[in-house]
């Protein structure tokens, strides 16, 4: 008897853990009065999705989020590759002190610096632009650290062989180091996309028009009490917003978990 308790508890917790999600999915496909009264046999409907879709410029929001995560990823790849390479494979005075300074940014969260980052973004003319949402995240200390670790494990022989063949510093980086760090790039990409697809506070502050707002900000405005939509419609909108990432996660689950681990374990 005792040995059934643990599996039962584990499965019960699992069911409890996904129940909010399952319930939102169920409610999204039902009429609101059926949803709030738990009529399990009630007919399915797509009306909530129609109402939600008509209620906000979702296509634009999706596009903005897509452009945003792509832009941030491109910026991070470029800046963190160059900086990580500099910290891993070049030597100059003050390098280690500088590295510690960069690591400080792990604790100076962009989220906390909203007050002054807003002024910086304003003075650079980046307010209400997708570049403005992405800019503070591009030179990520975390990414620099990750790329440095990846580049450090590349054998020195490969580097020297490429230099003998006549490659310059950038050539070596591009031909030797970047291909060798491919798994790290994949992991970093997954973590970065998941993080910025979901980010909310800074985009909320920087944007003020539908043409720049990402999905999360759009969703929060859509669900605000003032907008007067019912909970089934909110569920439908939520399902719509999380679907792409959730489907991606369920398909690439193993890679996702591996990516978070690579990114997290130092």
């Amino acid at each position, binding site marked *: 008897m005792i040995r059934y308790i643990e*599996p039962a508890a*584990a*499965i019960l*917790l*699992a069911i409890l*853990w*996904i129940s*909010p*999600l399952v*319930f*939102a999915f169920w*409610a999204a496909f039902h009429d609101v009065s059926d949803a709030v009264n738990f009529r399990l046999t009630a007919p399915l409907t797509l009306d909530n999705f129609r109402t939600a879709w008509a209620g906000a410029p979702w296509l634009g929001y999706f596009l903005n989020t897509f452009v945003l995560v792509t832009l941030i990823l491109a910026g991070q790849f470029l*800046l963190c590759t*160059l*900086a990580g390479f*500099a910290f891993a494979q*070049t*030597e*100059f*005075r003050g390098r280690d002190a500088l590295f510690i*300074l960069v690591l*400080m*940014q792990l*604790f*100076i*969260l962009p*989220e*906390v*610096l*909203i*007050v*002054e*980052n807003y*002024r*910086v973004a304003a003075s650079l003319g980046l307010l209400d632009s997708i570049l403005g949402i992405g*800019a503070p995240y591009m*030179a990520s*200390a975390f990414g620099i650290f990750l790329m440095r670790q990846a580049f450090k494990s590349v054998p020195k022989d490969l580097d020297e062989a490429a230099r003998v063949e006549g490659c310059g*510093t950038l050539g070596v980086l591009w031909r030797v180091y970047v291909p060798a760090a491919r798994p790290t790039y994949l992991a970093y990409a997954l973590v970065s996309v*998941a993080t910025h697809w*979901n*980010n*909310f*506070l800074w985009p909320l*502050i920087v944007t003020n028009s539908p043409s720049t707002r990402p999905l*999360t900000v759009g*969703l*929060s405005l859509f*669900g605000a009490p003032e907008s007067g939509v019912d*909970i089934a419609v*909110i569920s439908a909108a*939520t399902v719509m*917003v*999380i679907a792409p990432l*959730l489907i991606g996660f369920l398909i690439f*689950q193993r890679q*996702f978990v591996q990516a978070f*681990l690579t990114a997290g*374990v*130092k």
Partner: protein
Amino acid sequence: MTQAFNIERRRRAIHGWLLLSPALLMLTAFAFYPSLATLVTSLWSRGTRRNPSEFVGLENYRYLFDDPTFWQVAGNNLIYALVTIPVSMMLALMMALWANSKLPARSFIRTAYFTPTVLPMIAAANLWLFFYTPSFGILNQIGAAFGAAPVNWLGQPETALWAICVVTIWKEAGFFMIFYLAALQTIPPDLKEAAEIEGASRWTYTRRIVLPLLMPTTLFILVNAMINSVKLIDHLFILTKGGPSDSSKLILYYIWENAFAYFDRPSAAAMTVLVLALMGALAAFQFLVLDRRVHYR
């Protein structure tokens, strides 16, 4: 020969700086300069059209310390940290032990635990709204089945902060689980066999062997959880907006409110400086204390 070597070395040093410069430029613009500017702003008064901003020293801090809301918000955040950190870490450990053992439906269990991690906090808040809403929320319907009176979970000061904590725990536990899971998988199976031969119970094995081996992971997760207890506030925007009567307001939300709703930048800056100081202490703790122990990996 040495001269050629020197030139080569200088060439490499210049390359190093060139490679670093784009990242340093961005870090300066969006991390280092804003940190210093926050400190400066916190020492100047709030400028209006009649009274231009002037240097006031620590006046903004004194004003902040006299503000009862600030203390309430700081206290809320402390409770938030003291509740969400241990609970989500313990749940994470339990989930990892289960996800790592030979239970039936293991992959379903793992997926279920981890899924909340990939959702935006805003979406998570929308999902939980269904549970908390007073008239037809799921919690109240379950309560009614047992004859309990309906509770306005988000609308009363006694429960609002707890409701916020639950959402955070739900979101975080699965994320921390994967770090424990990875650490558990590195424990050699012979240890377990040896413990079984010695006649140690599973509980003794877990407490005496597994938990000490997981210590570095626990510390790593702890630092992350502490950072998150400042950072994770998105759900406040959907669920409570810090209310009722500030009972669920957290520091970062209050900073946002001061800066962008009340347009009181100096007090927002003063609070930011305090948070940065706290983060700095945490960073020092991590680098000076934790990294020494964790490095044996």
